[in-house]
């Protein structure tokens, strides 16, 4: 196991290096820079030229890359041209919100999807199953930004049960119970919008796996030995059917830091998704590069996690 981990970690180094070069080149090949959007009578053209020179934007790309990667390795992620703030601080501010929202969406979607998948798989073709499948396709087909707006209109504006935006009420002081409650309250609508639509994959996989497993030989054997039906499901079928879900968990964790552009924008919830999008359109390279690098690294780590989880739950593919 240790050897496996070590090998995977060593492979990550060239992977990350290639990723960083790619990110940098792709970012550089976008036309314009953070100063392009600032034209107008308020700024002298000479000042733009001076700022570009100062920021090193006129140097050849390999020099810029070397400078950037050198700093990154030393933990200096640079400064955002738009926010005039260290990228680390900027991402740090948003990362908490994004993790909280994504984790709560992930958790709630599992809480909904796993029971539904199991029910649908166990009682295939019953009316409950048909209802679940129907919901599932509807969820798959509904665009998030439409659904989020509908949820917001019903529960935020019409019923006024939950706040319409933001991550916390301004009156709640950090460290108090009010603050925690307010945070939770602000999480409800975006979580609802995100998780109700995020169930598709889990329900579908789980249902299919259960249907497949149900007719496998070892299940038949268990049944013929007189194992009670409830035990057949809980001990034999579910454990095996959860394998693909477990395998996906690693990737899902990667997705946690991506954030959701639509949810963040509609619910005015400051997170990484919005930051990423606005940094691209404003050509805030230092932020874009670091965000891609982080999510790239997370993808690599996530794959490794998935393999680990799989080998833990499925001894057949365990490696030494």
């Amino acid at each position, binding site marked *: 196991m240790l050897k496996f981990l070590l090998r995977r970690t060593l492979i990550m180094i060239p992977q990350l290096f290639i990723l960083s070069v790619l990110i940098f080149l792709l970012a550089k090949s976008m036309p314009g820079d953070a100063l392009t959007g600032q034209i107008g009578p308020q700024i002298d*053209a000479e000042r733009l030229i001076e700022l570009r020179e100062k920021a090193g934007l006129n140097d050849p790309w390999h020099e810029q890359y070397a400078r950037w990667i050198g700093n990154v390795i030393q933990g200096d992620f640079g400064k955002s041209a738009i926010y*005039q703030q260290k990228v680390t601080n900027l991402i740090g501010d948003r990362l908490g919100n994004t993790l909280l929202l994504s984790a709560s969406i992930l958790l709630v979607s599992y809480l909904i999807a796993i029971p539904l998948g199991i029910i649908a798989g166990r009682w295939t073709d019953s009316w409950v199953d048909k209802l679940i499948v129907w919901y599932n396709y509807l969820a798959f087909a509904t665009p998030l930004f439409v659904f989020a707006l509908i949820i917001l209109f019903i529960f935020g504006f019409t019923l006024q049960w939950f706040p319409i935006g933001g991550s916390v009420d*301004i009156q709640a002081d950090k460290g108090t119970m009010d603050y925690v409650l307010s945070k939770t309250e602000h999480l409800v609508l975006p979580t609802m919008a995100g998780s109700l639509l995020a169930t598709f994959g889990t329900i579908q996989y789980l249902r299919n796996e259960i249907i497949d497993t149900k007719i496998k030989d070892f299940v038949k054997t268990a049944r013929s030995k007189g194992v009670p039906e409830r035990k057949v499901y809980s001990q034999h079928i579910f454990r095996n059917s959860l394998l693909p879900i477990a395998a996906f968990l690693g990737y899902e964790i990667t997705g946690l830091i991506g954030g959701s552009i639509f949810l963040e924008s509609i619910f005015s919830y400051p997170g990484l998704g919005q930051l990423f999008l606005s940094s691209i359109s404003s050509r805030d390279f230092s932020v874009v590069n670091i965000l891609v690098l982080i999510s790239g690294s997370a993808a690599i780590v996530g794959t490794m996690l998935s393999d680990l989880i799989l080998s833990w739950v499925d001894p057949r593919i365990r490696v030494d």
Partner: protein
Amino acid sequence: MLSSFLAACTKDKEKVKAELTFPTAVSSTGEAIGGGTVNFGLISDTPFEGTLNHVFYTGKPDAQVLQFFDESLLYTNSDYEITNEGPATFEISEDKKSITVTIKDQVKWHDGEPVKADDLLYAYELLGHPDYEGSRYSGLIPMVEGMKEYHAGKADTISGIKVNDDKTLTISFTIASPSLTTGFWAYPVPRHYLGDMTIGEIVESDRIRTTPIGFGPFKVNKMVPGESVEFVRNDDYWRGIPALESIVLKVVSPSVAVSALGTGDIDIADVPADQYLAVEELKNVELLGQIDSSYTYIGFNLGKWDAIKGENIMDNPKLENKQLRQAMAVALNNEPVGEKVYHGLRFQASTLIPPSFPGYHDFDAKAIEYNPEKAKEILAEAGYKDTNDDGFVEDPEGNDFKLTFANMSGSDIAEPIALHYIQNWADVGIKVELLEGRLHEYNSFYKRIEANDPAIDIYQAAWGTGSDIDMKGLYGRNAMFNYTRWTNQKNDDLLAAGVSEQAFDTEYRQKVYKDWQALMSEELPVIPTLFRYSITAANKRVLNYDIAGGSKNGWDTVAVSADSPIK
């Protein structure tokens, strides 16, 4: 005399050829309750950046946060010219090269310290500092005597700024320019609060990010970075105790702005233009509007930028015939664009100085009126005739004549508008095609326009004039932003006259810019197409709120007539 001048402006304003008119101030007259809280919606897709200082901020959202707690030492009138009605008064020297600012005694920072002359000096020291990375080392700032040496790191102090005593300072410039009255920097920075940090530390510091101070009518009390701010009344405000108890600002997504206004979640917000029809139906808000300083235009690619000489070279013969440009201008039918696409919020532009400068905009200028027959006549006169009967004109030498038209992507309506213009031109026989058959992303669009890509003949873009009437930065011979690369001796003379010492005389200056607008309408290096209204909605409980530039009502006078918003 001033009042008659202002009256003349209001009368002139009615001459603007817009179908819609909006008040700039709320008409609600109820009785103000003592105190109360107003919820201000900052309409934005993204959180505010949170660099809450006039020297350092970059985005418009930050400017919206700043307006409540900080202000300029010198107020401005409707033409953006400085007045003596603000927290400080000014006097311009005989030779017009220096200005003396006197800060009123009762002006205090939120922590109780008086605002000192030294604080304004500190702002200039930050702006000119070699480590300063913002864009505002521009305009008049480099023109302060000794600033260039200080900026280059050759001097420790700015020789042109003299602090006379605690409350007065004199700033001298290397030139005498009337831009002094519109482009003078008067935002002080509290040295006692920030002065012990380096520039890099200040920008990162909580002292401008979460606990900034100013001397405006409200103080920052609490903040959730990027999302919301609670401001409380500043009892020591120099104009007296503000009417409201507090103001809560929160970021609201444009997609829910109208609903939030309708339910009273927010009292005041700028309305995104595409939601105008929806907001118009709300009964609980009043719509205020004013003409923006931005306008849309169509530019011609006429030459190139010589970076070494720092000069525009007009050397592209394809579009140099001004009759061709005139024909293309009168061929455009902007009325349906303003009416149908923008529901009247945009309307035919008439000159290159928008009515947001009431003293300078030429209200008598005839809009470049839609007249396809006249367009055909001008074309024929200029020698552009259809010689091969394909429905499109050929150039005077008889060669095929075809233009490419560059447009930016980013909104649903960009393409229909571009195609509408192309149809307008086709109607008079000018063949125009969309550049590469599609729209182009903002950054790549400007990159190619800046470089005068020979594949582009004409392009549609928009920009703002800012607060200084001086147009040299946009249309001058030495302006890099003069993307058409159009040059003209008379233009040089007029633009120079507009910032000459003589132009300190307002009447003279107005005449210069009137002549300039006429010249530009004749030469048409760019065709102004649309002026625009910006719309703000205010709940009907809000009193004394006025969005007009130069208004006497500030956030300190705003009050409410009810405890909670009208639904």
